[in-house]
């Protein structure tokens, strides 16, 4: 099953390779990984989309927690969460297709962020289904380039408390 794991890490040189090395070394899947600093610039937030049965996901969470640069690990699947992904799609647009491209963008509340006589670059944000859908519709026009950010996710403000495995701050 697919799991989205939110990992708070030290914002330090080499941390990404420790996390990536953990996944490759132990044969865990990474579908996508996104990382950026948090409000506190000494920390970064990673969102990792992975998959595996319960035993494997339990190991992934534990192994991540074991990394010394990892401060907190939350398996978002344990509670309600929202996730978003952004895609930048460069479509070929022959003159007769330009209106169609705009119409599709409009339906998905996507923005055209760059335009040339023969292309539009469309920015769209949403859950994976939405991204897939717009890609499917744009494909007949001819997609020249497609860049996806991978997902970021956040727990919904708890109706029931999120189950997390936070690490305590060291005593000594």
């Amino acid at each position: 099953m697919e799991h989205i794991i939110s990992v708070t890490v030290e914002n330090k040189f080499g941390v990404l390779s420790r996390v990536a090395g953990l996944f490759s070394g132990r044969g865990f899947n990474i579908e996508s990984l996104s990382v950026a600093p948090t409000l506190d610039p000494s920390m970064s937030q990673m969102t990792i989309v992975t998959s595996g049965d319960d035993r494997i996901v339990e190991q992934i969470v534990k192994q991540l927690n074991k990394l010394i640069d990892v401060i907190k690990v939350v398996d978002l699947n344990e509670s309600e969460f929202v996730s978003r992904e952004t895609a930048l799609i460069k479509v070929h647009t022959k003159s007769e297709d330009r209106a169609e491209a705009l119409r599709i963008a409009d339906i998905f509340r996507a923005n055209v962020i760059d335009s040339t006589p023969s292309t539009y670059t469309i920015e769209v944000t949403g859950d994976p289904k939405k991204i897939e859908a717009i890609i499917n519709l744009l494909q007949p026009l001819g997609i020249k380039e497609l860049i996806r950010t991978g997902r970021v996710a956040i727990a919904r403000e708890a109706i029931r408390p999120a189950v997390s495995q936070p690490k305590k701050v060291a005593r000594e």
Partner: protein
Amino acid sequence: MKLTGSEILIECLKREGVKTIFALPGGVVLKIFDMLHQQTDIEVVLTRHEQGAGHMAEGYAKATGKAGVCLVTSGPGMTNVITALADAYMDSVPLVCFSGQVSTSLIGNDAFQEADNIGLSRPCTKYNFLVKDVNDLATTIKEAFYIATTGRPGPVLVDIPKDVSMAKAEFTYPSSVAIRGYNPTYEGNKWQIKQAAEAIMKAKKPILYVGGGVVFSGASKELLELAEMTQIPVDMTLMGLGAFPGEHTQSMGMMGMHGTYCANMAVHYSDLVIAVGARFDDRVTGKVSEFCPYAKVIHIDIDPTSIRKNINVDIPIVGDCKSVLRELNQILKATVNGDQRELRKPWWDQIREWQQAHPLAYQQEPEGAIKPQHVVKRLYELTKDRDPIISTDVGQHQMWTAQYFKLAKPNRWLTSGGLGTMGFGFPAAMGAQAAFRNRLVLCVAGDGSVQMNMQEMATAVVSKLPVKVIILNNRFHGMVRQWQDLFYEGRYASSYLDTTPDFVKLAEAYGAVGLRANKVTDLDAVLKEAIATDKPVVVDVPTYPYENCYPMIPAGGCNHEMILEDPPELKRRMAGAPSTGSNEDKDTILTA
């Protein structure tokens, strides 16, 4: 006062109580060596290869329970020590390795003897640091020792660029460490411990499955108390040997692939497995899906990833063995009533039956070739009063030593379990000897393994580390030959080692003492002479080359389905084999 990075390093080592380091110099660490040369608090054991330095640090650590320290140069120094780091990582040995690095301005330029030490060591260290600023050095070293020795111990690498070792900074040693992402759990969950106590009270056929964690945790006393109070039999892993007295009536000896019949039957048929500081390695579980099929499992381990990694656990307890066992004992003390011996009698009757059915056994003909088990047994009997430290290499001789050399106490047993590193034994013994100059330190080696770090004989002689190396010389990679005899129809592909070198002459060439026992009747005298010698000694013991190590659970097999002796077809095949494996038998061996 401002100190150079090199001086800071030395000051930090002193503050960590380090008395001995194992090291080999090179360009980028010369400043550090120069400073080490000008002080006397820390002894530098110069090794002949960085792998030797790493294993010596491991031996030192295993015998003392403190972090072992080694120091190597950049590039090839670093790549040479990797095997030891990987070994320490697999066996949870606390180690701090300092590596030299090219100057910070050159990093990434393919500079002379540059290697990505951090990248190379990442998968085989608990943590690693590149120190880019001399002002961070002291804190980094403090953290390195803290990480190496707390929680589940392991190796930590500190990579020091040349300019950092020369630059100056104000020295202050931090008194404490705070790493927000690292805070191991020592106290077990009280509710879970209560559950465990209840399960123990209910169990009819419980078994303790004891691993290396008990040794690291120093929990032998608590374990003994638990076992005696509840009259539960004790199985040990290879790494757990010594955690419980090997001669104790409740000791089943080693479990797993080459464990005793009784230890494996007991765990297979038990109704409650109490795993303490053990990690359900595949050498122990055999076929995972059929490991202890009738049992509930309690698992006490400081590392949450060990729990439920390989098998399902009913009562997980994350915590330090010592603290958890103490609490458990307290609860049990209040609840245990009646005579546990009486209560457990049916289980013990069964166990004694298994013990009698297939005890460890070998046949030593008085005139025949020396049997390897016999050497270990005699070595044990001749030295047990001296409370020796004993190391092994990897192979059949390792398993026989595990079976026949009963350990009374922890921290006497140095062996490579997880990585199974041939060449570990001899340097590890030297590391222990460096920590305990006056103790008897033995190494049972294989003729194959010992050649992987033979160069350290020079270190033993020069640094006066009088270890006694007993080579069970079967002229084979015996463990490989055994598998070939059992599973590859006796085709000895690259397992025959021939009769060279002459280990006695080799020892003498190094300035050590070389002895040989040619006949069973010589054995005791030669071993006694070795033990009485105040120098490094190599005892070459030519042994019967075709002896196989049993019991054996074939890889992926079930624990109650052990091979107990050579199968009939192998016996038939071996009927014509030469019995002594002496020089003259060479051709016969190769065509066998």
